[in-house]
């Protein structure tokens, strides 16, 4: 810890706490947004970051490995376990190789962005806070129809499940909202409220675009205004080709086996964080192999179970570090 952490301005911190008290007593939030309504993809991200920072969340950066969803980030999977409170928000690039469409489908991408906020333990006014984020990004609840529709979440590979809703805005799903009950097969000590926005879909709705590639990535009045397609279309085309045609399956099988072995070894050495990275690696190899169509239906289940076993072992090892005093761990 050689670098001094940058602390938030004290005055802002106090103000933020007062806001919370106000929110808890009101039914809907009409808190003045710190930022004007977003007009492009990157402003949507900035607005959400800004909003959740003011809710007391750490603003983290994406995990620097390939993963299928923001839930895989250690800031969610691992931090959801154990007795320590945790508020964080971050963008996570999410890779789903089988969803690749060579850039030809307006709604499906093999690489897209999720914005995730996790509040542990879930505060009593978490729904009001969430609705506040919708106001912040420009969804006016006096014009739109917001609905909470039952949607229970389960991740077979993470051995995790929770109850919650998909949130609809005028019939469109704009958010997944989940109260985590189990992660890595372990019942949680404190329940996390997990809020996941599919950013492209939300942006298409906000900016009224029929295809993701037409989304304005930055402001129209920028020096170099670019669309989502300008930034990512070529990537979708090339990566789809890689995912479906060129990924070396023998190598991937090997990588899966190596990662699995390494993960188990690291768990035994009680190093849950590097072990978990190997688990993520194995999971992504599996996703690529799945996209290449080389995993039969029967094998598929067994691969999912193998990843789940890794995730479970990592979660158990992590939990042990959260429970044991630090001195003991150092020894």
């Amino acid at each position, binding site marked *: 810890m050689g670098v001094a952490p940058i602390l938030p301005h004290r005055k802002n911190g106090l103000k933020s706490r007062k806001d919370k008290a106000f929110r808890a*007593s*009101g*039914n*809907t939030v009409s808190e003045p947004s710190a930022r004007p309504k977003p007009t492009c993809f990157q402003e949507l991200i900035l607005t959400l970051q800004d909003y959740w920072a003011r809710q007391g969340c750490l603003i983290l950066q994406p995990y620097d490995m390939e993963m299928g969803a923001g839930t895989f980030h250690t800031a969610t999977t691992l931090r959801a376990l154990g007795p320590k409170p945790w508020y964080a928000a971050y963008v996570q690039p999410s890779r789903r190789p089988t969803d690749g469409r060579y850039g030809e489908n*307006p*709604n499906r991408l093999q690489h897209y962005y999720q914005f995730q906020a996790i509040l542990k*333990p*879930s*505060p*009593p006014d978490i*729904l009001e806070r969430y*609705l506040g984020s919708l106001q912040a990004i420009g969804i006016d*609840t*006096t*014009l*739109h*129809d*917001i*609905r*909470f*529709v*039952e949607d*229970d979440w389960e991740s077979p590979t993470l051995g995790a499940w*929770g*109850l919650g*809703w998909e949130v609809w*805005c*005028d*019939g*469109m799903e704009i958010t997944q909202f989940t*109260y985590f*009950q189990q992660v890595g097969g372990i019942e*949680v*000590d*404190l*329940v996390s*409220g997990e809020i996941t926005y599919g950013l492209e879909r939300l942006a298409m*709705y906000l900016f*009224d675009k*029929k295809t993701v590639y037409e989304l304005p990535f930055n402001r129209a009045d920028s020096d170099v205004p670019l669309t989502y397609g300008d930034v990512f279309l070529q990537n979708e085309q090339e990566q789809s080709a890689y995912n479906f045609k060129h990924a070396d399956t023998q190598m991937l099988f090997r990588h899966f086996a190596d990662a699995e072995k390494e993960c188990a070894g690291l768990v035994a050495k009680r190093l849950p964080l590097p072990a978990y990275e190997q688990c993520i690696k194995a999971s992504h190899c599996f996703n690529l192999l799945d996209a290449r169509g080389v995993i*039969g*239906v*029967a094998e598929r289940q067994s691969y999912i179970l193998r990843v789940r076993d890794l995730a479970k072992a990592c979660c158990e090892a992590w939990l042990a570090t959260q429970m044991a005093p630090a001195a003991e761990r150092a020894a």
Partner: protein
Amino acid sequence: MAELLLELLSEEIPARMQARGAEDLKRLVCDGLKAAGLVFSEARAFATPRRLALVIEGLPTAREDVTEERRGPRVGAPEQAVQGFLKAAGLSSLEQAEKRDTGKGAFWFAVVTKKGGPTAEALPGIIEAAMKALPWPKSMKWGSGTMNWVRPLQSIIALFDGKVLAGEIAPGGRMAPVPFGDTTRGHRFLSQGEIRVSGFADYCAKLETAHVMLDPAERKRIILEGAEKLCDGAQIALKADEGLLEEVAGLVEWPVPMLGTIDAQFMDVPPEVLVVSMRTHQRYFATARRSDGGLANRFVVVANNVARDGGATIVDGNERVLRARLSDAKFFWDQDRTVLLEERLPALKDVVFHAKLGTQADRVTRIEILADKIAAFVPGADSAGAILAAHLCKADLVSGMVGEFPELQGVMGRYYALEEKLPPAIADAIGDHYAPAGPNDRCPTAPLSIVVALADKLDTLTSFWRIGEKPTGSRDPFALRRAALGIIRIIVENGIRLPLRQFFEADDLMAFLAERLKVQMRGRGVRHDVVDAVFGLGGEDDLVRLLARVEAVQSFLATEDGRNLLTAYGRAANIVRAEEKKDKALAGRIAGVPDVALLEQVEEKNVADALAAASRLVRPALQGEDYAGAMTALAGLRRPLDALFDKVTVNVVDKPDLRLNRLKLLNEIRATMDSVADFSRIEG
């Protein structure tokens, strides 16, 4: 008399759990009241997406002390009995009990006074216990708490006689308790701040002002009337959908129906696809053209908001979402039609049906073989057609559309077959082969459809049976009961003469089917014991014939002749059975026709003649499946038999030959009647 008002406000409760949750709350609180000796006049429960509410009227404000007497053991009884008595009565020693002489000796008596007092003191415990016991289908913890509820609990109204009850619910952990109070919140977007209420009438009125319609029936009425009015205005008809109405009423506290339009480019996609997409993904109601009943290009969406632009933004948004959804559907429809069903078959080899039963391709092979065999028994079905339909019936499982909408399996196969210009009967057989999916579903009637639908269900039933996956109690993971019921309905409703035993390897499968048959036929007034009686003959595997016989026996038993003959049968069978019990070798000696020379009394001669006459008629009648005729023949036995039991003693002590011959006669009566049905299984 006073009123109890309870409201449990929470985050959004899943629509499917609301009605049941409200009823459970009512039941549990009422049970608690009864157990505490509190009577009331009426209890009503309500649910909205955010609250369960319960009002109980006519409760007393206080209870009298209730004195109960409990008799204990005899004075001087063993210590163990005394201790048991003291514990049950809540006494610490015999000094608190009374000794009384009952006339039958001295006994210990406990006189226990249950303290009465204000009802308000008893209610909090009852409410807490009911909330603990409430069985949500799925519940969760939140925050740092340990309490389980369907979604985080936010506030509680607990008012009795206009006053807040003393109490609270502690979610546990470091979370603040939720106190009993008199405030709630209105609509999430159309109301601000807390609402304070004084009683149920005030609660309803204030909720209404705060844009919450408490009664689900009222919400359903508003949705239906509003939707119908919109449809009237657009000259179309609303497609009734009770299940969807129920769900939508559980998604809104303040329903506002609106009319949207389906983009014209999607109207040539099969209507089933549009309806499923609108219903399952979006919870929209479909509408129909008034001219021909075909799907109209409008839909009804029910919003939970009164928007300040009159709903224009909401309708526009919903239309956009539907456009995106239907673009997907149209994409699949266009893509799927570029591939022939036949070309899809290899992909079925990669789809595992069940680990022990192979792939969907293996399943198709089995269904083809079955269809070929079954076709011979279904008039109008040709074997080649049946095999082709069976061959293609699962191909749509690997189409894009069914991948997206599994509930369209079969339906899409039919459309794709028609697009390929396959004969309509083949297409229909593919489309119908999952039917009937339930007791209220349509049953196939076209010959090829019957064949493939039967083959599919027979394969399911026999395959899972073979690997030992038989249903037990409440567990029937592969829906074998439904498959059996489907087989029964198709056979019975179409009068198909199918010898089932040719398809069943296991003996107990026929018995399983008979059980389902009883369940199925109960609804139509068919007696289960009569089914047993006919099924008990063994060997019958033709359900149509079996039911014809059952029907004849049941109508016969409804006549006076039938009832009397059954009594006579019972007497004959009882006597023979009693004698057989005494003499193990008797059964062998009384088999066969009685010796005419030994018939002494005119009554036994008459019975023997009547039996001979009946036998002559019964056998050919049974062979000709004239069961009514067989019953008429048996009816002739009634009077001679009545006379026999009046006048003739069977067990004559001093004439063993005579006795044996008379037992033979009775045995013959039994045998003749049992050739029609096992009358011993008929419940008097």
